[in-house]
Every structure is written in structure tokens, then in C-alpha cells.
């Protein structure tokens, strides 16, 4: 069965009033990377997933989950 890494990155980022560029700057990547992770095109490394969750004030499991 196909699995994919779903996330609530956009929802949380919007709640905090951050743009993709601002979030990208906080975690040390480009806006392009935030964009691809948000849209599920790119699966982030564990390091980036942790950085993103810290920047958005959530646990990794609250931000990312596996969808079957």
C-alpha cells in the first residue's frame, strides 16, 4: 500500500502569520524547500523535519504523519 508523508506545515505557518520565506530563513533553507515540503513534493530529512517543527512550536509527530 502506498504511503506518503503528510504535514500541517501550511496550516501552522499561516496560524503563526509566517510567510514561506520567513519560515525558510528561520530554518536555514530556501523558500523553494519549504514550498516543496508543504506541497508533499519533497520528503524532508529528519534534521529538517525537527528544525521545522521547532520553528513552528510543535512536535515532529504533530507536524508530520504517515498517510496510507
Amino acid at each position: 500500500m502506498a504511503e506518503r508523508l503528510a504535514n500541517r506545515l501550511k496550516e501552522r505557518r499561516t496560524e503563526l502569520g509566517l510567510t514561506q520565506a520567513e519560515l525558510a530563513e528561520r530554518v536555514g533553507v530556501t523558500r523553494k524547500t519549504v514550498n516543496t515540503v508543504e506541497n508533499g513534493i519533497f520528503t524532508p530529512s529528519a534534521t529538517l523535519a525537527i528544525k521545522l517543527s521547532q520553528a513552528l512550536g510543535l512536535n515532529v509527530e504533530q507536524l508530520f504523519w504517515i498517510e496510507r
Partner: protein
Amino acid sequence: MESVAQRAERLTAKRARALPALAVIYFAQQASFFTAYTQPHASTDIAHFKIGAWVFLSIAMLVALVTKGFWFAPREVRDLANDETSRANRSTAMSAAYLVSTAAAIVLYVTQALAPLTVLEAIHIIVSSGLGVGLLIFGMLERKAMRG
């Protein structure tokens, strides 16, 4: 003043636009080379110039594909412009380039009885197809990643 992130963003957008265009120019050069190519190993000044131009362009394309690029930008800008997504896209493009080069080599090996080629011609086709496809895929993946 432009921040590191803004500069990296601007450079990656520029790269995403330039790479597919470079790939098209590269393929066009190969088409032009083989259209005018009538005499294998012709040792004329024009033939030498064309081969020299191909070698120069191929090395430039290879460098564009496998290195971070932006040599005149500060290190932090270069690192940021080559973050996780770019590294993943480059890796995908290089895998595709390798597969296309291998497939081209197999096709040339099988068809050489029907259409004999010199070693130079075969190398030219194998290298050009792999490099061109690699650049094209890297550029397309980068453009796709930029879209909101």
C-alpha cells in the same frame, strides 16, 4: 540591502530559469554538429573548432550539473542555494543522466552493425545525451520546486 536568504532565492530562481534554456542550447548545438557532419575524422580547421566548442560546452554543462555553482557568491549564499531540495533534485538529475548515457551506449552498440560510427561520434552522442538530459531534468525539477 539584500539578505543572504534573498540573494540565495534570487540566484536559485535564476538558475531554475537558465538550466532548461542551457539544455536546449546544448541539444541545438548537437543537432547543428551532426547535421553538418558529413566526413568522419575530417581534419579541417572547422572540424577542430566544432570539436573544441563541444568539449568546452560539455565541460561547462558538466560543471553546471555537478557543482554548487555561483562561484562569485559568498559561501553562505552558495550553501543556502544548494539546500536539501537542490541536492535531491541534482541527485535525481544525475541518476537520469547516467541511465540515459548507458541506454545510449547500449543502443549504439546494438545498432553499430547497421549504422557504423567512429569512436569519436559514439562518445559525442553518449556524453551529449546524458549531459543534456541531466541538465534538463535538474532545471525542470528546480522550476517545479519554485512554483507556489
